[in-house]
């Protein structure tokens, strides 16, 4: 019995528990959520402590029991250097969300608590699952809770955004399912470990191309890749803060994680066929996202489009099909999760204080009105624009490195072009973030009511992210040492 299973049933139990307390008992659901998610975070940290760093490429704490033997589906879990950081990111962000929620009375808090925990089950499960169908089941679990979070606690156009989110991502999921099954059926197994070990040698090229197309499409919607991204800005703009944080922080990563974990290793020929296209769309996404950001007038929308750009770098990393590129993608995942999580926390705090997310209405001078809030915003923006020394840089840089020398069989010139264009995108990224800072933090504060500065509860939810952004940025080895081994194993031949 693996200890990993605790990471799944604990949140599930925590989701149900608030509904089981006898009527009349007063229970603060958010307080309970804080304790429970803290405990789950501790459980994930136990995994970190128990992890054998000598062999990050080995699946550790495996658990493999039959679930639906009739169709060959197993309940197969495991953690390696790729999934470990993502699991911790998930538990951390969930915990911080609960911390953040403690600031105000939330309507219908019990339901929100339950949904967040169900969401956590899905997210953790996705990163732990080692069976294609099981992966898909967990991948799908997040949809309904996230839909409900947007639809119940969201902004004005929440219904529209929630439906768009769930329908669009379900389209991706359905295609993903087709692709996964195509892969599984042709390989004769749903076991992800076996699939990546076998490197798809016995699957016909045509099938690989088709399967990668399906899987890639499905995951690209989630990632999101241009031009499949338009659910994201709406969802982010309307979602409540915790929703945005988890959506950007973890849910998007499920897409890229799937590409790295499944599509690339198991379908090498399919990946080789599609990689130039994937890279092209990724690069377009980088430029497009940045340009769109330049013209945004809403804070959360801007951050949402910035996610498109950043995930473009992650996808570019994957498209290179090199160990470097995959490292870049995984690093970018974590970095983006931390930074964008922080950014959305901040956006939530700002929106709450100013009563609007509109940049013009917020006006300038936040550094004067709420200097600490503005300071953290500046930090987050700078981290997000990929400043070396902070987490955002390494993923982007390594993606460029990967693109300069893409995997064997890929058109070098094309990828070098991508690299150059992506570098331009990095400049544009800086441009819109600095424009944002100039617009709302700089300048004289207009006439307006005083704005409260950061609240201790907010600090509590921000500081861990800030510390991690700096830590990972200054010492990228903490992540790269984890991912490098598994990535080399996935890409094969240890390059």
């Amino acid at each position, binding site marked *: 019995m693996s200890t990993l299973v605790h990471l799944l049933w604990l949140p599930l139990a925590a989701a149900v528990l608030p509904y089981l307390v006898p009527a009349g008992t007063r229970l603060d659901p958010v307080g309970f959520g804080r304790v429970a998610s803290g405990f789950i975070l501790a459980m994930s940290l136990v995994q970190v402590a128990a992890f054998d760093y000598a062999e990050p490429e080995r699946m550790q704490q495996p658990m493999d029991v039959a679930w639906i033997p009739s169709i060959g589906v197993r309940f197969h879990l495991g953690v390696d250097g790729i999934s470990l950081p993502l699991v911790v990111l998930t538990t951390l962000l969930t915990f911080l969300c609960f911390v953040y929620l403690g600031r105000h009375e939330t309507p219908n808090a019990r339901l929100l608590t339950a949904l967040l925990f169900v969401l956590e089950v899905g997210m953790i499960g996705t990163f732990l699952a080692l069976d294609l169908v099981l992966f898909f089941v967990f991948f*799908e*679990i997040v949809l309904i809770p996230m839909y409900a979070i947007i639809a119940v606690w969201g902004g004005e156009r929440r219904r529209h955004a929630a439906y768009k989110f769930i329908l669009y991502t379900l389209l991706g999921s359905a*295609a993903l*399912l087709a692709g996964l*099954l195509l892969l599984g059926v042709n390989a004769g197994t749903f076991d992800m470990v076996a699939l990546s070990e076998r490197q798809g040698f016995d699957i016909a090229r045509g099938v690989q191309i088709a399967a990668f197309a399906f899987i890639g499409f499905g995951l690209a919607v989630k990632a999101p890749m241009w031009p499949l991204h338009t659910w994201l800005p709406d969802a982010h703009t309307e979602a409540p803060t915790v929703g945005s944080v988890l959506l950007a922080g973890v849910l998007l990563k499920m897409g890229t994680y799937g590409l790295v974990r499944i599509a690339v290793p198991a379908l090498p020929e399919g990946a080789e066929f599609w990689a130039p296209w994937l890279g092209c769309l990724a690069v377009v996404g980088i430029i497009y996202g940045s340009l769109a950001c330049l013209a945004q007038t809403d804070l959360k929308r801007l951050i949402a489009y910035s996610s498109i750009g950043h995930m473009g770098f992650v996808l570019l990393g994957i498209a290179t099909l090199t160990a470097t590129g995959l490292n870049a993608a995984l690093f970018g995942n974590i970095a983006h999760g931390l930074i964008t999580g922080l950014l959305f926390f901040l956006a939530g705090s700002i929106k709450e204080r100013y009563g609007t997310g509109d940049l013009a209405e917020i006006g300038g001078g936040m550094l004067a009105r709420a200097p600490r809030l503005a300071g953290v915003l500046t930090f987050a923006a700078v981290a997000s624009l990929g400043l070396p020394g902070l987490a955002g840089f390494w993923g982007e840089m390594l993606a460029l490195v990967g693109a300069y020398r893409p995997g064997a069989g890929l058109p070098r010139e094309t990828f070098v072009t991508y690299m150059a264009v992506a570098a331009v995108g990095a400049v544009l990224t800086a441009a819109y973030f600095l424009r944002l800072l100039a617009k709302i933090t700089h300048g004289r504060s207009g006439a307006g009511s005083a704005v409260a500065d950061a609240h201790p509860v907010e600090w509590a939810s921000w500081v861990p992210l800030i510390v991690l952004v700096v830590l990972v940025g200054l010492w990228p080895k903490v992540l790269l040492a984890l991912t490098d081994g598994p990535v080399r194993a996935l890409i094969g031949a240890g390059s």
Partner: protein
Amino acid sequence: MNVIQEIDYAAVAPVLIVAVAAVALLLAGAFELGRKWLGWLTALALSAGLIAVFTLIPGEVRRTFCVPETLRGDGLESCSYVVDQFTLLFQGVVLAAAVVVVLMSLSDLEAADIPAGEYYFLLLCAVTGALALVAARDLVLLFVSLETLSLPVFAMVALKRYDGRATEAAVKLFLVSVVSAAVLLFGVSLVYGTAGAMHFDRIAAASVEGPLEAVLTAGIVMVVVGFAFKVAAVPFHFWAPDVYQGAPVPVAAFLSVVSKAGGFAGIALVVALAFPEQDHVWGPLLAVLAAVTMTVGNVMALRQTQAVRLLAWSSVAQSGYMLAPLSVGAGHIGQGIAATAGYLAFYAVMNLGAFAVVRGVAAASEENLLADYTGLVRRNPLSGLLLAFFLICLAGLPPGVMGLIAKVLVFKAVVTGPVLWLAAVMAVNVVIGLYYYLVWAVRLFAPGTGRLLPSGLPYKLALGVTGAGAVVLSVVPQLLLQAVFPTG
């Protein structure tokens, strides 16, 4: 030389039990037995049939009503009635679904002033037809049992005798059904003329060449069309929404599950056993039908405001999903049939569950508009939550893992075949489907007022059986799937 074929009574036990029960019930009805009693007796008889099916599961494949050795000629055994995994699964689904339909009917008949004895008799006759249909291995028995399944249902639909809409529904069902039967029969005649036999194994063994091949092709298409009507595949679906709406809700549930099961069994049997060589004919045909069916069903369901009509269109769409695995061609038809059967079994649970709640609402508000469901969770938490769960299952999303696994089955089967494009069509359709299920499910949670649902043991039992089934199968789908995929 025996005059009459040898009969394995154990093999036909389920059919026999139900048929005998039907006659017994008719007699009991004559003795003015209370309508409640009739219902429980029917449920009992069907359960007995179900037990018979279960006792047959561990045994060998049983064949009976075979061609007598004197007439066998070239040696093919050619049994008309075969009890194998497929038969038992479908018989089980049919019987279990019928039990739930009976439970739903128990409280319904009184309100609609339906003669109970005849109703249950007709129901049992239809079930007899369905049970024989799924075990049939020749075209004659297939046709006769198909008609036995259909005819009583016409009467059941019309049993609300003073409701013109019920009669209208019956007329529509009758006309479409009879015309389809004619088409089916014409197809059967062509198949018989070209292949020279009525038994599936002989048809499969016959070699049809030259100009006759085109005739056989036409015959196959017409046979498939005949059954496609039964499963409400587009363009043979027009009757479904009108009939579902006009018929008593339990009958609609019966149509959407038991009749449909019969239709799918028929298609699966003919294409797999009778025409394995002609998969270039029925493969693409079924694929196109599946694609069109699921698309039309879904886009039509999008526009509905009435609950039963929505379920009707949704069941059209679901038929599309169930047709899809059958289109994979002879090479993978075993997997395809297993997927369809598995999907059908899951679908039966969730669809009947949804119908059970819908029936409850129908009793409270006759129009049965979606608006009547607003706030159901607050009024009747259990019914509301279960309906939401069934709907999410139908959409195929966790927490409705059962529905998700059902989709997995179908997708898995489809991607094995040469019809990959169908997977893409399905992907799009799953999305459209989610929308209307979700809108409905969300409505249940919204604040709103309305009447309380009636309660009562049969209602609770129907809901309990389907709800428990859905929850358990969502956790351990294997329970059902081990019956579908015997060897793993």
